[in-house]
């Protein structure tokens, strides 16, 4: 908590633009919130009287519920709007929809959109904080924050006071990188925390040009998984197969699915992650998804904590600015 003064941003749009210190600030606050989880009264009063609007213009279970839960734990009022229930279907522009939400006196806007850049676009046009809950194939910053928080937790020795960072860790992200906002945000977050990132998968979905991000690109799973401290799997979508990015789901599983044999290449204490939703038996064996090394459900739990931190920090930054301008 003592590091929260390292935060001045009104919006959270991307991990690319976040500093190491800002990531630490969120993670330390999330760790603090984790201690309140065991309490009978989980609610904190921090955002009492504030209204958070979740504008989700793409399907989502986990992220939307986690944002709702995070806001409610902080005592905020929450309204969630989906595409089909919004005036966007009547042809209202995103700009007008968002300006109306602001005019209704919402205090924070959480936006999920299929178009890359949509969160940045709104952040430039709204006074209130805009939090990116996923914009097309661009970024999904809170997902990367919860993923790296989960990694840090797992790599922090028991009894240590501070979270470890990811220095010297090899982390492999495997799957549809080209269309993945989760991969992009995680590349930035993991690198800022010191990890070496390897991207793996078929060449059509993991083009070599990703090397410009400072990562390794591999199409050989032996190489990509060997001695990795963690592997993060990404969901494979049928629509990519229809667009000829790979021949068939069956071939994908046989070439790139994570099975027991391939999992044995990882370091013995390596962890297995997936942002969900998972396709059991496609990118990951069912038994591995449920296995000892899987932290898939820890990721979900941590998602609420990291989002609580993001809501609180951005709301505070916006509040400070408002006071300053009076």
């Amino acid at each position: 908590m003592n590091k929260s003064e390292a935060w001045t941003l009104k919006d959270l749009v991307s991990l690319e633009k976040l500093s190491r210190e800002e990531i630490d600030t969120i993670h330390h606050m999330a760790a603090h919130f984790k201690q309140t989880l065991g309490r009978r009264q989980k609610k904190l009063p921090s955002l009492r009287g504030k209204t958070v609007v979740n504008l989700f213009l793409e399907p989502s279970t986990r992220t939307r519920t986690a944002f709702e839960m995070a806001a409610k734990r902080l005592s905020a009022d929450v309204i969630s709007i989906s595409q089909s229930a919004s005036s966007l279907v009547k042809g209202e522009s995103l700009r007008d929809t968002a300006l109306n939400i602001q005019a209704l006196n919402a205090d924070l806007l959480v936006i999920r959109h299929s178009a890359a850049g949509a969160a940045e676009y709104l952040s430039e046009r709204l006074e209130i904080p805009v939090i990116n809950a996923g914009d097309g194939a661009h970024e999904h910053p809170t997902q990367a924050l919860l993923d790296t928080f989960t990694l840090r937790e797992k790599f922090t020795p028991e009894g240590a006071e501070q979270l470890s960072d990811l220095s010297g860790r090899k982390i492999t992200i495997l799957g549809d990188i080209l269309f993945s906002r989760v991969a992009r945000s995680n590349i930035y977050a993991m690198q800022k925390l010191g990890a070496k990132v390897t991207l793996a998968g078929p060449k059509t979905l993991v083009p070599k040009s990703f090397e410009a991000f400072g990562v390794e690109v591999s199409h050989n799973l032996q190489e990509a998984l060997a001695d990795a401290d963690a592997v993060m799997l990404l969901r494979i979508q049928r629509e990519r197969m229809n667009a000829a990015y790979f021949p068939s789901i069956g071939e994908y599983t046989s070439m790139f699915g994570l099975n027991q044999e391939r999992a044995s290449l990882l370091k013995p204490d390596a962890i297995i992650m997936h942002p969900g939703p998972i396709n059991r038996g496609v990118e990951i064996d069912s038994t591995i998804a449920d296995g000892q090394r899987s932290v898939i459900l820890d990721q979900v739990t941590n998602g609420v904590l990291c989002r609580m931190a993001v809501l609180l920090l951005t709301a505070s930054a916006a509040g400070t600015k408002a006071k300053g301008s009076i």
Partner: protein
Amino acid sequence: MSNILWIQNGRVIDPANDRDANGDIYAVDGMIVDQLSDVQKAAAEIIDAKGLVVSPGFVDIHVHFREPGQTHKETIATGSRAAAAGGFTSVVCMPNTSPAADNPGTIQRIKDSAARNSVVHLYTTGTITVGRQGKELAPIGSLNQAGVVAITDDGDCVQSNALMRRAAEYATMFDLPLMDHCQDSSMTEGSVMNEGLMSLKLGLKGWPSAAEDIIVSRNVIISRQTGAKIHMQHISSAESVEILREAKAAGIAVSGEATPHHLYFTDDNLENYDTHFKMNPPLRSKRDQEALIAGLLDGTIDCIATDHAPHTDYEKDCEFDYAPFGILGLETALAASLEVLYHSGKTDLKTFLGWMTHKPCALVKLPRETGTLRAGCVADITLFDPNEAWTVGDTFQSKSKNSPWIGMTLRGKVKRTIVAGETVWDGAQIVNRDSGKC
């Protein structure tokens, strides 16, 4: 009393006649003449061009004036005023209007409007296929009779090689050039920007330059086979320049244009998802940009054309994926192109002006000699100061404001635009005129 013009003391540059010298230009009743008699001199309107370049009026073979059908973006009245303000005296309008200019009636409708509303010479193109649908041939012979200067499905590319080959073959009967917007659409589904590092970073769907290169190659092959003149519109990729270079060396009747925006910007300019940098074809890499410049310098690319494509502010103010492609070009073309090609030291003014005057004229079927100050030609003349710096504001003669140059300071200012002997732009405003100049 005839209308006599005497432009004095300017640096006269007429690339078509290899002329670059200080001197005077004369016009009588809208036509250039070699000299004036003493009586005419006494009666002439004198324009002092000291310190200015006196050039043939610029010619843009690629503009969208949106009339009929999309007049909320631009009209022939506003588009032609934008042309005049940019120093252009002749423009060639693309046929992707609504309805498409795929029949003589629509062509006539555009010409009628131009006669009433245009302040510059306005030429039409017809489509290659009915409704620009790429399925059946438009009435190319009738379009030719209606006076189109080329045929094109601009905005869309004829995907069928068989159809393109027949169109090319058929058009040779009328010596009518084809202009093609080179894009294999099977490779660009959902694409909104160049495929490269920047598209990976932004998470936007990439548009490989191969989609252009494949169609440029196709058109080279069809031109060789049919003898048809095929012009490649707004070339954006280094490989396409190379393909065109080899084709020209082999004597094939193909040509190409480059836009000021592909010369000036790269896909790095998209980093903030600014939709003013969204165009088709997309801004590409530094390497492609350099290849376009080299292509102009060695004659592979024949001319500069703006692809002036107005869209309203509310159409462009949205998510990047949803914004329409295209930007304004006419009013910034001279300055932006001078910055890249002249002020950078890459070429001289005479060579540069060739790309803006007689060279584009040679690519389309104009009814008379244009793009030169030769005696006997229509007196279309542009006076400009190549060195004057100005900051692009957010008001334009165009009806739209979708320019990526807003706020930038560029060198090169149009001081006067003369169409058929009459001043239509005086360096600050449009000079009111009663009738069109089509």
